[in-house]
């Protein structure tokens, strides 16, 4: 499914954010990506949803070579990748529901379907009551959950989550991880970047640990 082969990413010349990373993730797997602040977790995810290109190495997603894909095809690939951003990236002038709906609108889905699926997704993260709140009317944790709802609303093939529990209390964190693993069960290959090592322990899933851009050890 996902094949990362000797990928490096340099910003400027001084330091590598990622050095010669290689790993394979099978279809339907759920993998944690851990590491200290600045270790390169977000950078790796950014390569996977094509916000940036690797400086060296290859990334194969399904049949596509992400390092070579043409610009015109990027949007169509992204439609199969759901992303929960570390900084949420909600559209400020749209309500929670409209933000979630965006993923479906872009696909040209019908109004009825958009409404049904949007409500479903908001319900899943426990925010149906805040459907008409604008992002500035949401707490940090609520915004994070809206971002989750938007990522999962279209049942993506790949789900990337960057620090999805950073702004959540324990109770909410646990619920959110339950939700992500449920979506994973339904078939979505899931990669979760987090620095909360105690979380990964609880799930006993495969864990990739980054230390200053180097893939240190792989635990299971």
């Amino acid at each position, binding site marked *: 499914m996902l094949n990362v082969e000797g990928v490096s990413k340099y910003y400027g010349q001084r330091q590598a954010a990622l050095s010669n990373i290689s790993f394979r993730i099978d279809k339907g797997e759920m993998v944690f990506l851990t590491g200290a602040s600045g270790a390169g977790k977000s950078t790796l995810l950014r390569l996977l949803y094509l*916000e940036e290109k690797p400086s060296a190495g290859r990334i194969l997603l399904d049949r596509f070579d992400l390092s070579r894909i043409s610009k015109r095809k*990027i*949007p169509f690939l*992204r439609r199969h990748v759901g992303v929960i951003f570390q900084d949420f*990236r909600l*559209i*400020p002038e749209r309500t929670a529901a409209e933000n979630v709906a965006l993923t479906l*609108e*872009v696909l040209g889905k019908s109004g009825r379907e958009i409404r049904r699926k949007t409500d479903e997704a908001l319900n899943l993260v426990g925010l149906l009551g805040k459907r008409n709140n604008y992002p500035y009317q949401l707490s940090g944790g609520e915004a994070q959950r809206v971002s989750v709802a938007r990522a999962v609303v279209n049942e993506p093939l790949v789900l990337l989550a960057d620090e999805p529990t950073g702004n959540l209390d324990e109770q909410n964190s646990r619920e959110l991880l339950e939700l992500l693993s449920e979506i994973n069960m339904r078939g979505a290959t899931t990669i979760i970047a987090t620095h909360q090592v105690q979380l990964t322990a609880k799930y006993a899933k495969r864990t990739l640990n980054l230390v200053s851009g180097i893939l240190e050890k792989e635990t299971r």
Partner: protein
Amino acid sequence: MRSFGRIFVEIWRSVRFELLSTLGSLLTIFLATLLPGLFWIASKNLTQTEAELKSGLTMDVFLREELTVEQITRLTKEFMGLGGVTGVTYVSKEDALNRMMQKFGPKMLAGLEDENPLPASFILSVDKSVFTQGVAEALSKKISRYPEVDDIVFAGDILNRLGNILRTTEILGFALSVMVAFAALFIIANTVRVAISDRRKTVEIMQLVGATRGYILTPFVMLGGMLGFSGAILSALALNWITGYVSNHLIKLVFLESHEIFTFIMSGLCLGMVGAFIATRKYLKI
């Protein structure tokens, strides 16, 4: 797929909170398109007037004395043989006096009948070729060689100089119009830029969830097109009114013909879309 409804919602999102600004930009575009329109109409009318003046222009050949019928026939024939001459009319001393009286009124010239001081003349109609450099001079040299001819008067030189001035003015006007068109392009681009810059985060996020360039561009390009289109229509209406007003109060003017109006308005539309496209592109990453 991508419904018109969505596009208008997007446009409305841009315009909603910025109604005043949108109206301001409409006013600006209206004014900006007014100037090229004015120059277009002015140039159209001037060209037409100049053509009329030229086609009505004659070369007056004054004669030493009245001619006999044979002389008239002969000279008429010979003058017609000269290049550029399209018609020859003989004006006797009496005809000349009648014309003068019509011009200045009989009272002023009363008593002139008894001893008519005006000379007889030939009036030659000429075609456009005479307005080319040197042709008129050659023609009048040829004619002045006839012993019957006393003096030749031809206003073509003055008209030519006037024409040159008109053309210079037209070139200036055209240059100014092009600059103004650029300005209009810029104004529209800027208005759309404000709209998109206010929503740059939206655009960025749309791209991240899989929106294509076209999906994001379309509403903004349409907004620009609508601005240019409406501005040009307002401008055309104003030009029509101005032309009418001047026609009634100053001098008769012709307005643009319908296909020219169409060109004018479509130029506004295209200008708007191009301006918007340029402005929007910058904010797209892919």
